[in-house]
């Protein structure tokens, strides 16, 4: 005889909080929330007590005070009377400058080394392997210091350029390589259309952007013509004219001239000065990151299966078309994401500028300003905020790219 029993009554027991999957995640999250709140309360409480004991408060008003220190390498006007905020801005621009320069050269080094490492020339590929291994396995800080030391120890000082029989001389009478940096001629406009030099350069930039759009339109039309008639019209001369004619005309109207650096007193004056620290940092970051990029490039090219090359050849494509139309588009999809994260690394590693005295944002805001004002918390927070913003922007760019090259699968 069977009896029908009711399903067991749902009654809540305390052990269900841990053992029942329905409640367990709530338990854990509650525990985590409490722990987090406790931790924040504890740290915040300590912070308040410590600040009170030290007689400090969190305030950003120090940013408006006069900084009182000089910065050698700067992209915008700055003197020691300027505010701390201005100094931070100078540092920020310097960070962006060195990161931008290093990204370009690191890519060049990396692509060359990566491609050469796959070369069927034994000695060249081994040489590139040695380059990659040496630079990847030694800290970038040591590279920065070594290159900076070489620059200051090996290059001639400005003093050696003077006298009747100078031991050093300017290359082509235009460039001076000294232990304080490299001096190059600076272009300027003798009769610019606007009063300020910046506006004149903006005009040049606008003209360049205009030319770029014009060439793009020409290329689109060429592609359309090719689609209709099968013959692509030659656009080389049109494009060249679109780029050069307005540019040269503008330069002519505004009177382009060069300011050549000259030895005056104990140092060179005039021209553009690229300081030793900037060069050391730029070169060290490029050659160090270049080794990593070389590995990415190699991996990317190797990731394209051999069948792709063979299939393209079977279709009758010539070797350069095989490379341009088949291999590279597929390899780039593999190469670009790690490449962008290397750019991110360059931006972050540029903070090592402080070791060679390049005035990037870590050295101005996180170094001198912090030490002068004693505003440790504010300075470090601002510093982190800047780097976070920069890296979030770069990863956003990466996500946009990834979405655009995503394989459309069935």
């Amino acid at each position: 005889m069977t009896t029908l029993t009711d399903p067991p009554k749902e009654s809540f027991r305390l052990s269900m909080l841990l053992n029942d999957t329905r409640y367990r995640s709530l338990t854990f999250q509650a525990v985590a929330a409490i722990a987090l709140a406790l931790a924040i309360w504890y740290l915040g409480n300590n912070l308040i007590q410590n600040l009170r004991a030290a007689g400090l408060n969190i305030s950003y008003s120090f940013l408006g005070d006069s900084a009182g220190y000089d910065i050698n390498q700067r992209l915008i006007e700055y003197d020691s009377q300027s505010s701390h905020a201005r100094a931070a801005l100078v540092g920020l621009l310097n960070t962006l400058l060195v990161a931008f320069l290093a990204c370009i050269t690191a890519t060049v080094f990396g692509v060359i080394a990566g491609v050469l490492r796959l070369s069927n020339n034994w000695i060249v590929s081994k040489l590139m392997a040695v380059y990659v291994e040496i630079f990847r396995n030694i800290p970038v800080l040591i590279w920065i210091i070594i290159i900076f030391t070489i620059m200051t120890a090996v290059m001639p000082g400005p003093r050696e350029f003077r006298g009747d029989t100078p031991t050093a001389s300017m290359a082509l009478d235009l460039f001076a390589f000294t232990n304080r940096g490299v001096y190059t001629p600076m272009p300027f406009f003798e009769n610019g259309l606007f009063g300020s030099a910046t506006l004149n350069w903006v005009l040049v930039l606008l003209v360049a952007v205009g030319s770029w759009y014009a060439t793009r339109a020409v290329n689109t039309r060429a592609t359309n013509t090719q689609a209709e008639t099968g013959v692509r019209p030659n656009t080389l001369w049109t494009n060249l004219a679109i780029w050069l004619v307005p540019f040269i005309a503008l330069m002519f109207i505004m009177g382009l001239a060069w300011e050549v650096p000259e030895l005056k007193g104990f140092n060179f004056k005039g021209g553009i000065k690229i300081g030793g620290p900037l060069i050391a940092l730029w070169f060290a970051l490029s050659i160090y990151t270049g080794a990593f990029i070389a590995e990415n490039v190699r991996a990317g090219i190797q990731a394209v299966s051999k069948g792709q090359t063979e299939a393209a050849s079977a279709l009758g494509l010539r070797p350069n078309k095989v490379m341009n139309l088949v291999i590279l588009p597929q390899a780039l999809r593999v190469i670009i994401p790690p490449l962008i994260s290397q750019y991110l690394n360059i931006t972050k590693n540029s903070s090592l500028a402080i070791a060679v005295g390049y005035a990037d944002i870590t050295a101005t805001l996180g170094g001198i300003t912090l030490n002068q004002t004693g505003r440790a918390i504010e300075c470090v927070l601002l510093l982190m905020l800047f780097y976070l913003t920069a890296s979030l922007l770069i990863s956003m760019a990466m996500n946009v790219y990834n979405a655009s090259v995503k394989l459309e699968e069935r």
Partner: protein
Amino acid sequence: MADQDKNSIAFVSTEVIPESPPPARETGVVKWMRENLFSSVSNGVLTVLALLLIYGALSSTLPWIMNGLWTTSSLAECREILAGKSGACFSVLTERWHQLIYGFKYPSEEYWRPNLTLLLMLVAIAPVLFFDLPRKLLIFTGLFPFIAFWLIWGGTILAPLVALVGFVAAGAFFQRFGRSSFAVGFFGAIVIALVVWSIGGSLIPDGASDNAMLPAVPSRDLGGFMLNMMLGLTCVSLSVPLGIALALGRQSNMPLIKGICVVFIEFVRGVPLITLLFVASVMLSYFFPPDATVDLFLRVVIMITLFSSAYIAEVVRGGLAALPKGQYEAADSLGLDYPQAMRLIILPQALKISIPGIVNVAVGLFKDTTLVSVISMFDLVGMIRGPVLASTEWNGVYWELFGFAALLFFVVCYGISQYSQWLERKLHKGH
């Protein structure tokens, strides 16, 4: 037909033609060179350029190294002996060897302690690296941190003993209760450890370190390459478990825990290590209780560990994501709960995939330990830039010192990456 055969047979040669040697250009060195060095004009040009480069590098460095002096007492003396010849002044390495390795304040009569620790470290690390060694050795690996702490810092032996007892008690509790419910075992073990430590800590008398068997050495006296090694080893071993936990947290379907992990990981990966070291040196002390003095070494270890754990978490997440979904489902269908599934099925496979990435992070971390020289800790780079290059005897010996530092880091980092490749091949159960 037969007739034809008979006729044709007359034309078949009866003896085998002797093998003639292959053409000279198709054998041996010549063939190899032709194929690998001079297969085309551009390749030939590249080869010549590469050879010139190698010749240039060797012809300038080899005499410099060969003429190197090892026994002088200052750079001026070196220059006097060399008399204008190219030659290195390696004597800075022999004369300042102890400073470069141990820092300039570690008491010289105690150098045997770091040396012994290094030896024990090799023993302790061996069973972790090589799975074929007897598993019993892992017991020593577990004991090593406490022995190492006692050896390097000296002072009372009670402190590491209490720490050890706390861990043993927690482990025993987990063994007992962790089987039935992971959560009870885990949180219980933490509580037990905290209780043991607080009781044990209050039992240690105040002046225990004064007349200890090994004289106490404060953290600020540590330096040189030893500091790099200590930071590297400590932070790697602490950040691997933390990184795995973060990766699991990021995969979790509990929104709060996932959110905490995501914010932490993305924040840490977005800022350079140097800002975190600034936090350690100038900011972190604001967050400790007013009367507590946490020494710089510990603060730096905390920040570097947090830093690298975020990177390891991303590597492990990659490994977890690479596992086919079937593995998770198989674990569920076997009736395993979450901790069991992770421990027995998911993590062993995911970690195997992540090994190269984790080793990369470890190598990067070890290289990054040089950054502590920026916050005026005297690690190898800090020693070179500070006390050694600033001294009157050795002011100007750049190449030898930085070359030495580069060589040390290269040997260690290259060794680690070679190990990782060996392990990858070994773990690869190819089909």
